[in-house]
Structures are given as C-alpha cells and as structure tokens.
C-alpha cells in the first residue's frame, strides 16, 4: 500500500531521551572496525538517534522495515556528540514521491540535547518497496 501523501510536513513525537555512554560509542566505533579512545563519537553516530525516530515513524505508519532501502543520508553538525549527552531525535516527513511502485520518502531528523539545543540535523531518503522487487541499493 502506498504511503499516505498527507504525511508530508508532519513531525513525529521526539524519541525518548537516550544517554550516550562511552561504552556504546566504543561499541559503535568498533563495529565498523574503528577504535575509540574517548572524546567525540564517530561522525555517523547520530544515526542511532535518527534510526530510532525512523523506526517509530515506520511503526506508526505500519511500514515493514525489511521493505525499506536507504537511498541517501546527509548530516549537518552543529557540534559533535559526546559521551554524557542525553539526546532525542524529532523526525519530520519532508517529501514523498511515488516512482514505479516505490515510495521515496524524504525525512529530516533533528537531534537535540537535553537542554533542547541543536546538535545535528540529518536528512534521509528512504525507498519503500510496497510490493517487493526492484530495489538495488
């Protein structure tokens, strides 16, 4: 079933605040073969928050994760993520197009700290194959 066009412009509730621990930053860095010796988290770490927001969005819209393929991701950082940060992400559906049986969903997720200060904004293009087949990325 295609995704409802009326979603464009809608923001979903902020994800529950999540504390960034040194252990988790290390696990994330090591999962991509990197090392972590303290300090800022790897640049793609905020995807943990954005992914949480995306999952909540997909659940709310009853979209199966396995039908989603990632099309594009961009990060724009105000500051790096540090252990001790308590972060939340708020997802907004920016654009929605249908191409060849696929929904192309443009989202932006703003990651903020516990004071409400902007940490980074990340935009994602999600390709949703509503009837299977054709994904190539």
């Amino acid at each position, binding site marked *: 079933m295609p995704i409802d066009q009326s979603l464009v412009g809608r923001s979903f509730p902020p994800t529950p605040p999540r504390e960034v621990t040194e252990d*988790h930053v290390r*696990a*994330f860095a*090591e*999962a*991509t*073969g*990197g090392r972590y010796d303290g*300090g*800022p988290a*790897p*640049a*793609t770490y905020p*995807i*943990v928050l954005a*992914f*949480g927001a995306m*999952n909540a969005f997909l659940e709310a819209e009853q979209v199966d*994760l*396995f*039908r*989603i*393929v*990632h*099309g*594009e*991701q*961009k*990060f*724009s*950082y105000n500051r*790096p993520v540090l252990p001790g940060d308590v972060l939340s992400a708020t997802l907004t559906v920016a654009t929605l197009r249908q191409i060849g049986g696929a929904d192309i969903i443009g989202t932006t997720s703003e990651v903020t700290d516990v004071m409400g200060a902007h940490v980074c904004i990340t935009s994602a*293009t999600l390709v949703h*194959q509503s009837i*299977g*087949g*054709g*994904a*190539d*990325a």
Partner: protein
Amino acid sequence: MNPGDVLETQTYAVTRADLVRYAEASGDHNPIHQDETVARSVGLPGVIAHGMFTMALAARAVATWTDGARVVELGCKFTHPVVVPVDGEVTVTVGGTVKSVEAGLVALALEVTCDGQKVLGMPKAVVRA
C-alpha cells in the same frame, strides 16, 4: 591540506560478522543485512551491508586523513549495494581528494568502491581545518 591533494586510499574488509555487530550497535536490525531469503525477497542480490555501515567507513577514512578533525557535513547517496558473502569478506575502498579549503573549512570529495564498483553517490565531507 591544499585543493587538489589526493589522500591516501583506505581499504576496509567487511564480513557478515561485522554486519551483526553493526546491527547490534546501531539498532538497525533490518533483516536484509542478515538474512539471504529476506534480502532476495525484496529484489536484492543477497545480504547487503547497511548503507550506514559503508558511510561509517567513509567517515573513518575522513577521520584518518584529517586526524580526527571536527566534521561539519557528511553526506552520500547509496547507489549500489555492498553484497557481503556468507563466508569470507568483501573489501570497501575509500579514496579522497581535497576540493576546497576556505574560511577554515576543508571540503573533501570521496570515492567509495567495492570490487571496482562505486557504491556511494557523491560522497563528501566538510571538516574544520
């Protein structure tokens, strides 16, 4: 760093076990990164690496080249899947060129390939000099 500088190519091996660890650390448990049957059912050639896994490798290369400089922007399209076999590994190669150095910001154009095939579209990073 100066415009036109070509940065030392970085290579990274990727295995299924890496994808399992990344799924755990990132929270992305999409089965297309673990399960051949599910991956094929949505038209993929096999189990593929998380796009964000490949992007994390690109970010690792940037951190290596810039000695951990603060990243201001990072972005790419996911244009071709990195198919990871059940046994053995695939190699992801990250190359980079300095595009501009302006107002304390260094813009890098990356090239990320797997088996000679570009896997990311227009990957780029901007870091503080």
